[in-house]
């Protein structure tokens, strides 16, 4: 047999904020052999290459995702991404978790058994509980179906940040940033750090959702990217404006920001039920997926929330995992699915638990397809109103909204799916 078979108590797939926090919490709780697998050479996840501030402060406004730009109001609290990543790794190791980097889970060999590949060879690891924390990525140009030629010079924020901060690579001279969510501003900050002039930040929104922090970045609103030009190098970004005009911005670099999708391949390959909205595993407030003993945490569940939120979920998943190990967990099933109506895109968690748990922080997270000023949300089941709640802030595609959870006690466990609607 060329594959080394081992057993652990808890196997955590993914060494980003959620996975590391889960590992630290579970190891501290003496959960037995707690092993974190990270496929990159260094653990820490996305914060490794976010050189802006805002991570892990009291406000933890690493700001909706791994986002806010250097010099912003958010950045005064907390620390930089790389420091945050190193601290997260140290916390997991100090607590006694085993962290194995450069090891990739390549597939499943049983309900809680995975196969791995790494420089030390192939393994088959069976765990009493598995926590999936594989995170999220930005959709690249192809997945966004942006037409045109395929020249070099097209980046996502993730690739850009690694190129600049981890490898010191040359980027270009003139860049367009697509997307004006916080992650777009983070991309702009990285470009400036690399000495790249920013031609414009482009967004389809009619007006900026918040006041421009940096007058150095011209913001083009109401504009959609319709194509890329250039052969040996990007030469321009074609735009269509809301008023019908078509223009081309001359540039040699474009960064496509935001538009996160969960990295759900392992969950799907394992046959876990996915939520049609988030496209991550369907889960309840105790982070249980459709497979007993397989849990999930972090941005795999909702692409995307800030690093501190993911880490909070990592700590929170420890409780149901410990119940699982102790045999004191609730039997699976019995939860009702939560479904949303447009323009809402998804809600997380998206199942009610059998035991009335509240989600992390006591509130559900929702995502909307378009901007909603102070929306009124209605929660109902079989036409029966369970709850209604007015949001105090404006929500938008990159600005999730949250919903109180006390109504879960009123859900009929034998009723239909619970529906969340914008009135």
């Amino acid at each position, binding site marked *: 047999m*060329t*594959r080394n078979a081992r057993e652990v108590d808890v196997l955590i797939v993914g060494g980003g904020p959620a996975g590391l926090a889960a590992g630290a919490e579970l190891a501290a709780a003496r959960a037995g052999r707690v092993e974190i697998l990270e*496929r*990159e050479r260094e653990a820490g996840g996305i914060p490794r290459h976010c050189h802006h501030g805002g991570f892990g402060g009291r406000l933890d406004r690493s700001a909706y995702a791994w986002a806010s730009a250097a010099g912003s109001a958010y950045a005064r609290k907390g620390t930089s991404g790389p420091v945050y990543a190193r601290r997260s790794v140290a916390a997991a190791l100090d607590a006694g978790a085993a962290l194995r980097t*450069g090891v*990739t889970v*390549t597939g499943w060999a049983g309900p809680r058994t995975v196969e791995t*590949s*790494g*420089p*030390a*060879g*192939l393994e088959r690891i069976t765990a009493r509980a598995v926590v999936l924390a594989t995170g999220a*990525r*930005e*959709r*690249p*140009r*192809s*997945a966004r*179906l942006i*037409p*045109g*030629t*395929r020249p*070099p010079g097209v*980046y*996502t924020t*993730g*690739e850009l940040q*690694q*190129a600049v901060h*981890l*490898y010191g*690579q040359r980027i270009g001279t003139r860049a367009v940033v697509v997307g004006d969510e916080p992650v777009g501003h983070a991309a702009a900050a990285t470009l400036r750090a690399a000495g790249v002039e920013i031609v414009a930040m482009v967004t389809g929104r009619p007006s900026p959702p918040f006041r421009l922090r940096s007058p150095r970045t011209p913001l083009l609103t109401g504009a959609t990217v*319709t*194509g890329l*030009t250039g*052969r040996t190098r990007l030469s321009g970004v074609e735009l269509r404006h809301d008023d019908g005009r078509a223009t081309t911005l001359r540039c040699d670099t474009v960064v496509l920001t935001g538009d996160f*999708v969960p990295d759900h*391949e392992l969950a*799907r390959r394992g046959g876990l039920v996915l939520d049609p909205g988030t496209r991550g595993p369907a889960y309840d407030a105790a982070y249980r997926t459709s497979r007993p003993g397989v849990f999930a945490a972090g941005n795999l569940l909702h692409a995307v929330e800030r690093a501190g939120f993911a880490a909070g979920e990592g700590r929170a998943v420890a409780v149901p995992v410990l119940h699982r190990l102790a045999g004191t967990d609730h039997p699976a099933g019995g939860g009702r699915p939560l479904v949303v109506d447009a323009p809402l895109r998804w809600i997380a968690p998206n199942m009610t638990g059998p035991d009335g748990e509240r989600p992390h922080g006591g509130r559900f997270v929702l995502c909307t397809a378009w901007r909603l000023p102070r929306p009124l949300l209605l929660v109902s089941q079989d036409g029966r109103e369970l709850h209604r709640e007015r949001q105090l802030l404006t929500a938008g595609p990159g600005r999730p909204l949250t919903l109180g959870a006390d109504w879960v006690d009123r859900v009929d466990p034998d009723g239909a799916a619970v529906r969340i609607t914008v009135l």
Partner: protein
Amino acid sequence: MTVTLTTSGPLPPEKGAEHTYDVTVIGAGVVGAAIARELSRYQLRTALIDAADDIGNGTSKANTAILHTGFDAVPGSLEARLVREGRDLLADYAADTGIPVERVGALLVAWDEDQLAALPLLRDKAVRNGYHASRIIDADELRAREPHLGPGALGALDVPDESIICPWTTPLAFATQAVRAGVHLHLNCRLRDVRSDAGGHTLTTSRGPLRTRYLVNAAGLYADEIDRLLGHDVFTVTPRRGQLIVFDKLARDLVGHILLPVPGPAGKGVLIAPTVFGNVLLGPTAEELDDKTATGSTAEGLHLLREKGRRIVPGLLDEEVTAVYAGLRAATGQEDYRIQEYPALRYVAVGGIRSTGLTASMAIGRHVMELLAATGLDHGEPHPLPPLTMPGLGDASPRPYLSARLIAGDPAYGTLVCHCEQVTLGEIRDALASTIPPNSLDGLRRRTRARGGRCQGFYCGAAVRALFEEARP
């Protein structure tokens, strides 16, 4: 083994017999590379030149990657014969060298009564092309074999030997073998003019003059222009653009076969096919253009493909798109290849090699060799080429990251760099040190799959670029 591969600087000096090539092949696409490989079996001084910085960088890199049976060719045509012969040659060659091939079979799906009525005619045509294994299946069998097909399919013609193949490894294998056997490969070498005389040809290229006794024009989209430089005006290449969408590997279970449209008055339609990498391909469009460089995709083209794809396999549209590309096929307004020898000129034109060129490539190579001999090339006896093993990039290939033996021998084969495509440091290092190394990140992708997966470099792009730049002088 002395390898002569140049990418810049002047070509070997023209003076003196030892600096005159016996044969020069213009165009290092799959056809030119196959011809060069065939020539390399003989004691000839052969050059293979291309304007691009890599082999297979034109039409060869952007096609539907199908190894055809030739069941639907025009019976009696040169294309029909070369596809039939080429298919067997390439299938055997792929098995020998490790080029990824999967015999998934094709189904020509009939969506209306007219198309259903056309199936027996297509089956008869297949028989006239020497292909006897196709048969018509009814809607129930079709549904059972392709459960994710959209509603309304009435039946299909089953062509069990249609296969999928790696379109990048194939020309690379040909060129690698040719170069190892002594063929000189000159890249970034654009042909500007040809002056012919009694002794042969003097080519003016972007890298200086090149002298050759015999000339083979396998320049794909530019074959007509080069033919005119030699004084002919026989055909015109009209680029026919085909846009294609590649879906995520998670879509692979939706499609079992190559799902071909039934050709009809409304055109050839689009196909859905698995790829050897485990993705699913949707396309191509067929747009007649003037511009031979218009390899961009368009919003209209992508919209059209998605609308057609939605009908064939509705679930496909819910999957993430991994890549979008467009290729140009060399249409000449004739339903056949245009391969013509000119003995007085010591010249062979290989034009109008349409989408079947990948399948027919090795047979075209043999055919051109015969034509060169007929034009007076004294080539002597062939000698066998040393065996070649190409990296197994396919989903069904033995990939290094799953080989305990390889990893134990060299941990670099267990060091994954590109996670979406499971490409290891060892494979990237091998490609960068290979006989014909890549000159661009795209070239590296075609050799290894690195950064060719669903994240398109979000995770690995900077790391792969660092490895590439490290390896370049």
